[in-house]
């Protein structure tokens, strides 16, 4: 099975302290560390496991700039066979629809039976997978937490629905699936693995290579503002040392009957 996994480089939420920049239109990016979006990492692991079972190859693709190559390499160290970087200045300001458009053009350059995306990204809106499927006119299933290959035309997929119930559906290939975390346990990527793929050539495609013009990518959704919401009623920031915070929290939980 030929699988394409769409991945994104995002600021790592667990290893950054996110703060607004002084202009208030973005987060402060000077001191950030980046990693592959957590959901995408699960998608790549799932793709590798499918290929281990039924054969084929895994390609990872990202829309970004030169720095995005780092996440492609990390996923290749994990076991993805090929990387594909879609980079162009024209891609920088685009919106979710634009990203889907770019990805659609990349899909057309190869033959893929299955396209995976993360269900959403740390800094995203969870929209690209669905739009990509629609543009490709492929079947789409979202927040998938289980994939079983029935044959080379059909997959059985699972989704967790409200209340912890599991729903199993059948979907025909080619299709697009957005992957939920917890579908597997992604393998560890060590420094050694990354070094092993350090010199592998990663092809880069620009707008021209994909037959895209800037007009098609012009954002139709624009960010207007970026701010930390004011504290609402009932919300309270606990302050003090960690121990004081914990003590206060315990006290509150006890007072509200949450702890006995």
């Amino acid at each position, binding site marked *: 099975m030929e699988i394409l996994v769409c991945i994104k480089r995002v600021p*790592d939420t*667990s*290893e*950054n*302290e996110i703060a607004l920049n002084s202009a208030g239109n973005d987060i402060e990016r000077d*001191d950030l*560390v980046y*990693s592959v979006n957590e959901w995408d990492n699960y998608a790549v692991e799932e793709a590798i496991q499918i290929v281990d079972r039924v054969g084929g190859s895994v390609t990872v693709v990202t829309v970004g700039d030169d720095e995005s190559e780092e996440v492609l390499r990390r996923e290749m160290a*994990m*076991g993805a066979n090929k990387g594909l970087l879609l980079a162009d200045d024209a891609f920088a300001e685009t919106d979710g629809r634009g990203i889907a458009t770019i990805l659609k053009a990349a899909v057309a350059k190869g033959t893929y039976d299955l396209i995976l995306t993360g269900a959403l990204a740390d800094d995203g809106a969870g929209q690209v997978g669905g739009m990509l499927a629609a543009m490709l006119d492929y079947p789409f299933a979202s927040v998938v937490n289980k994939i079983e290959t029935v044959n080379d035309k059909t997959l059985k997929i699972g989704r967790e629905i409200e209340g912890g119930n599991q729903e199993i559906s059948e979907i025909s290939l080619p299709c697009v699936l957005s992957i939920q975390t917890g579908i597997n*346990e*992604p*393998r*560890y*990527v*060590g*420094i*050694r*693995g990354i*070094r*092993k793929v350090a010199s592998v050539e990663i092809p880069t495609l620009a707008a021209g290579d994909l037959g895209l013009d800037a007009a098609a990518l012009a954002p139709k959704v624009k960010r207007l503002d970026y701010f930390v919401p004011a504290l609402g009623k009932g919300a309270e920031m606990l302050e003090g*040392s*960690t*121990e004081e915070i914990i003590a206060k929290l315990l006290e509150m939980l006890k007072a509200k009957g949450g702890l006995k």
Partner: protein
Amino acid sequence: METVLISPAKAWFFFIPTWIFSFLIPVAGVAVFTYLIALRLAPLVRAAPDRRFNRIPERLRQVLKIWLGQWRHPRYMLAGVLHIILFAGFLSLSIRSSQMVILGMVDGFVFPGFDSFIGAAYDILRQIMATAVFVVVVVAAIRRGIFKPARYAVPAQYGKDHTVEAVFVLALIGTLMVTEALFDSSLAAAAHQKGMHAEILVPMSLAWIFARMLAATPAESLQTLHLVSYYLHDLTFFFFLCFLPLGKHFHVITSIFNVFFMRLDKGNVKPVRHGVADDKLDDLESFGVKQIDDFTWKHMLDFYSCADCGRCSDNCPANAAGRPLSPRFITIKARDQIFKSYPVYPIGAPFTKSPPLIGGIYSEAEIWSCTTCGACEEECPLGIEYIDKIIDLRRGMVDDGNVPQSLQKPLSAIEKRGNPWGKMEKKRADWAKNKEFAADCEVKLVEAGDTAETLYFVDSITSYDDRMQKIAQATARVLTTAGIDFAILGKEEKDSGHEVRRFGEEMLFQDLRSHNTEMIQESGAKRIVTADPHAFNALRKDYKDIPPTEHISQTILRSIQEGRLRLKPVDSEGKIYTYHDPCYLGRHNGLYEEPRQVLDTISGLRRVEMTRSRDRSFCCGGGGLMLFYEPEEEQRMGVIRVKMAADAGANVIVTACPFCLVNIEDAIKVAGLEGKMEAIDLVELIDQHAER
């Protein structure tokens, strides 16, 4: 001259002269034994390289002390003394056993030089030893078969009980002693009956007792007994020889080699592959140990040498806490696997390709359960090592991406931010900038361009953890009070990588090491001090080309001795202190006395020792990445440790390691001893008692 009894060299069995048997039994025995040894050597030849032919004088010293001197045996007094007698018996009786073999072919054979007083003295000695060995065999069999000490038990998941093999071998040894004594005593009894000169029998020895019992036995029966006991001895001897390489008694042969080749240094970690330089590691096809043939030949010799005595597991804190790890079975399962992969012809297909170890004989949880505390290696009377094997197995798992999710996050955070919590580099020195603290103690920062003679290497937990920052502050104040000019690296410092390396992520460790090495060198410091034994061990054992490193307890002691630091009398009534040895300060670096001496300079401080202290200290639960690992366990090691302190009558546990402090403080809460027991770091205690 009339002979007392016909010797096996001259007797006949129907029409066959018995010397033929005396010749054929050893030939057959030696042939089978040689085949078995060759078979056992085969995997060693195919194994990974190991560098053990160096430092010969030190190795010979180990052989004298640990092998010949049986140095570690009395740590378990009864079993140890029994073994020492057995061992001395085996050594001293080896001459007699060889003589016996030849006696079957050459009548009256004595080794050159033994026809003098030496031989006479030896005859007395060997009779005493044979008797002693027999008594030990009986005591050991009763102990093994009836009293069954707990450490010999085989938990269900590790297979069947080993008592039968143990008692069988004791029976073989007993048979050797009895038949040899019967051989002697039948001759002595016959000589006595005929009024001829008899060999002197040591009163109360086995042979002496048998000779008395045989005093009235007819001469013909004595003749039969003489020959039968000889051949029973001969057969048992060669059967035993060939039985040795088939099980745990292989140590009788391998122990001297195993001790000779044992590890000489503590706290260090073996290279990924001996003979491959760090900068060539990227060329290696595979990392670590994934199947049995990936072990080094010494590690395989370890597997052969295990005597199944259970001392390692008896001291293993992971085993005590109910984690799925028992070092004894790390070895025994590997030995069984080698025996299976290299079977004795014609059972099984020879030299089968060994299956993967993880998921085969070992589970992932088993290998991640080890805190590398070193208690097992400290105890093993045969010099078997475990830490390097565990690390090699982890390297194999890391190479395959097989790392628990709970460890992936901190590893990736260390890679990106230089600390396992993923906190910002620029906040690494925040503890020093805290207003209250900075008001009376100024800390120089290398990142700000300061320089100093001494570099204080803080390491991650002490830099970032709210509670452990107090250790950093106490260290800074104590250094200042002692008049030591020091600086910290601040954001230029990254995790020492001590556990990164010991959790198998060698390449990440090497990145951290090269970064820190460069920063330390650029700082221009002449010496390094740290309050974290894990950093201390890393800087001493894993790093090269950096200034000498000492632990704060050494600095404090020297400052006290030189009069630069004076301590007030103890300020708390009713407190009884006990010192908990951190593994990486004590066992791995031999610093047992310094912290105790420091404590004892505080006048009025009442200190008690826990039963498990110094080199038998019990690990608190492990440091570094072990804090993030979620083990399967019945209880926390720390809780066990805290109860040991309570049993010793202490109500304050003093330690000298931030990880010990985390684990012990948590354990006090878990054990429900809050208010009754407290924990404090040595440097905090000194900070409180320093005269300023």
